[in-house]
């Protein structure tokens, strides 16, 4: 049993080691930024993988470029511009806020507000209906009770 568990663990470990690129970062902060960008930038060849997860050749090249830009001390904005000017907005998992993306960013808020308004209207109408019932005179109430109690033929 123990042997089986160990061999499974060993097999898993082999996969973990595959495709790791050794990089020397000059500071933990630089390493942090590298990890941030490889997670936030999308591989332009793949439909839905970030640079960190993809092993497409272009993703490898872009990780290399990212590392180079970081080593050169480029700012976050410069790095994003470098990628977008070559591969378009597609590479950003988090689209920039600009007139073209206002609807995208504001859509959820709009829908939420719309939903609130709809629920509010429904609740208000339902209240009006119950209050209309409460406004019945005694005579009307008796008549209503009679009607409701009437057996259907």
């Amino acid at each position, binding site marked *: 049993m123990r042997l089986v568990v160990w061999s499974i663990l060993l097999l898993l470990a082999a996969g973990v080691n595959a495709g790791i690129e050794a990089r020397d970062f000059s500071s933990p902060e630089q390493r942090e930024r590298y990890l941030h960008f490889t997670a936030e930038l999308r591989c332009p060849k793949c*439909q839905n993988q970030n640079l960190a997860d993809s092993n497409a050749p272009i993703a490898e090249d872009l990780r290399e470029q990212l590392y180079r830009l970081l080593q050169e001390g480029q700012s976050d904005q410069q790095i994003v511009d470098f990628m977008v*000017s*070559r591969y378009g907005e597609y590479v950003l998992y988090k689209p920039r806020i600009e007139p073209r993306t206002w609807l995208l960013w504001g859509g959820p808020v709009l829908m939420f507000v719309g939903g609130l308004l709809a629920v509010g209207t429904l609740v208000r109408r339902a209240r009006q209906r119950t209050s209309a019932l409460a406004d019945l005179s005694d005579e009307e109430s008796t008549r209503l009770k009679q009607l409701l109690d009437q057996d259907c033929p």
Partner: protein
Amino acid sequence: MARLRLFLPLLVFAALALLFWRGLSLDPNYMPSALENRPLPAFSAPTLEGPVISDAELRGKPALLNVWATWCPSCAAEHAYLNALARKGVLIYGLNYKDNAEAAGRWIAEKGNPYVANILDPAGLIGIDLGVTGAPETYVVDAAGVIQLRHQGPVDERVWRTVIEPALAGLSAGSLR
């Protein structure tokens, strides 16, 4: 008013149907190049043929820039068609992408040479400036060196007729004016 409300579900259905019909007919693989309508990135690199070439030398006449490599099976598939285009008089420059010059030379000797010149880009750096995501890709570059169109994937009769030829034709008509 009450009558109108009766049709509300139908209207919602129609709106959704339109949205989904459009959404489903989009090609999720289509990715317009970020460099369309922008000039070719500056480069200066040796060619397979020998002399160093720069982006300035691609200006003057509308031309195609074809990104290819010997490791790319689709490039082998489109090669015969590129030969045919070159015979028709289409100017095609090659960008030998992440490849080695020796293998590229053998490939050209074997399959024929449709290219005016082959820019060597063994590290894929010109490719990155161009926004290349893989081979083959074909760029339509106008006489001023501005990228008009990028096609990803092999060029064949259908792509030529529907995508590349119309773009090129527009350019020559424009330059006549």
